């Protein structure tokens, strides 16, 4: 019997080389690899699986139906269109690929590799020296877990894992995974804790014994809320927990260009007539916020509430007093 991969390739070539739509019966009769002694039901199951595999690889089978018989073909939409990418866009993609394909913590490396093979369909694509490490703690383990989690999010399958919270509470969790994000070298999962009925953020590196519900893999276990946005859970280091203060910070004119890069989409940036920018942002931990301001200065100063500036001045005077001796 022909190798399964051989049958899949023969089927793909047959579908791509056909002059018009072909039926399952045509494939069964013409493609090497379908067992001669197979009954109709077994063939139908095998053919469905084969189509799924080819579709997952990007073979977009168009379906036409005539007298209740389905027929399949590849039209122009099945092939990569001319994208007319600029040199800078191609360089960006090549650099991203060169870095992230070496990064064991990037969870979508396999799909990225095939995507780049389609965008650069020759061996002379640029391969600039680059490497990547999105996550720096056990990158391979984080990448493997993040890949399983991304797949579970996409297919809406429940997951289970062991977890020790920051407060030290250990236990098993059953979670509906909603999304993943990367922040400062760590992957985080956002999902609904089924038992507590609460949406929580979990550090992927601290998940143990991760399993994905494999019952009815094509049937979703849950619906993600339509207004869910993973970005809403990505916060800056002074924003863990409920917001306690609405603060205003000023980036002076020389520092204004850095405002968008530093603020990570949090709060609101308001350009002012003197070319400075005001940043209105919610703050949970005021001390941590002041640290952030100093670390990202100069040119970044608190405007309100007044005690923010007062505490900054007092703290800096302490530093001068202790270090100026």
């Amino acid at each position, binding site marked *: 019997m022909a190798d399964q991969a051989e049958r899949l390739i023969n089927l793909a070539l047959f579908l791509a080389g056909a002059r018009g739509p072909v039926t399952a019966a045509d494939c069964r009769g013409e493609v090497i690899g379908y067992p001669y002694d197979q009954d109709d039901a077994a063939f139908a199951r095998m053919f469905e699986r084969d189509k799924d595999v080819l579709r997952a690889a990007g073979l977009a089978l168009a379906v036409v139906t005539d007298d209740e018989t389905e027929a399949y073909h590849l039209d122009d939409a099945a092939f*990569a269109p001319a994208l007319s990418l600029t040199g800078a*866009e191609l*360089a960006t993609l090549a650099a991203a690929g060169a870095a992230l394909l070496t990064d064991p913590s990037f969870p979508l490396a396999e799909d990225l590799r095939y995507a780049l093979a389609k965008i650069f369909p020759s061996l002379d694509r640029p391969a600039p020296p680059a490497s990547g490490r999105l996550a720096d703690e056990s990158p391979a383990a984080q990448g493997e877990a993040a890949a399983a989690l991304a797949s579970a999010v996409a297919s809406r399958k429940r997951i289970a894992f062991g977890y020790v919270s920051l407060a030290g509470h250990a236990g098993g969790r059953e979670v509906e995974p909603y999304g993943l994000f990367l922040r400062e070298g760590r992957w985080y999962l956002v999902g609904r804790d089924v038992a507590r009925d609460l949406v929580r953020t979990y550090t992927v590196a601290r998940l143990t014994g991760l399993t994905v519900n494999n019952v009815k893999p094509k049937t979703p276990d849950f619906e993600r809320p339509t207004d869910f946005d993973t970005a809403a859970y990505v916060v800056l280091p002074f924003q863990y927990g409920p917001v306690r203060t609405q603060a205003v910070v000023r980036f002076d004119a020389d520092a204004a260009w850095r405002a968008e890069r530093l603020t990570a989409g949090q709060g609101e940036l308001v350009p002012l007539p003197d070319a400075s920018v005001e940043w209105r942002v919610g703050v949970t931990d005021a001390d*941590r916020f*002041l640290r952030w301001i100093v670390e990202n200065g100069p040119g970044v100063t608190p405007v309100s509430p007044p005690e923010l500036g007062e505490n900054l001045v007092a703290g800096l005077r302490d530093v001068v007093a202790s270090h100026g001796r």
Partner: protein
Amino acid sequence: MAARSNAADRARRMMALLPLLTPGAELPLARLADVVGGTPADVAADIALLSMCGLPPYSPDELVDAFVDGDIVRVFAAPPALDRPLALAPAEAGALAAALEACGRGPDDPLRARLLEAASAPADAAEIASTVRAAVSPGGVAEIHAAVAAATAAHEALRIEYFSAGRGEVGMRVIEPWAMGVDRGVWYVAAWCRSAGGERVFRLDRVRSAEGTGETFTPPVDARPPVPAFPVDEGLRRATIAFSAGSELSSREWPGAVFRPGEAGGTIAEIPFVSGAWIARRVAARLGSAEVLEPRELRAEVAEVSRRMLADLGES
């Protein structure tokens, strides 16, 4: 998660190989493996299997006409079909979107949108954006990344405006970009800095502008990507810093630091550093809960950066 069979993975790799098999080509197995994945031995086995695949009636002229010759794949004719790349699968478009996000291109980026539109089945941009966020809304970096990537690929010197976190000011430099890397979500470029006359590593989110000079250069043959961004080695200077009790400390925040108990529940840290200005600003940011014990010149630097900040705040 539904596990895919090995045959499915292999068939996908073999389909990716087909458009690369151009007539007359002699293709190194190792390079093919770089592009489609697997090992050179995997790819050799794939080519051997592909040479048995084709179209009915499976006569020799309807089969894939390529064979492995040592480390090379020799191709005699174009594949009988599938000789051009397929459209992106939705998952592949999603992976590209995540990779571009890691390069500073957020959900509204036009290149991301074009790639998603080019997928073989509708790729829901909002669904993809909320499934994997590979960066924290790194606004304003995409153009810098593209300019540096293009110059690195073309070996073209760049003129950059660079914000020095240590000095707290923007300066103009001309650099020869050698290699790029992403560490903990931040992109860096390793380069020869003509302005400084030495090798330097630059954070792309601190590059205000980047412009090609039109001058090309020859990169060193051993150019290495700047990852990790903070290699800790024995040659670095070390600061001894006392942190008061309750200070939040981790070696992730202070790479290479060694911690030991200090007085009154505090912590003493031995922290390697390159730039005195960098570590001085971070100590000042602790607003009194950290004190440099050694070296003495770093103590003066901490005091000076704090005085400058007070002056900026209108305080003496």
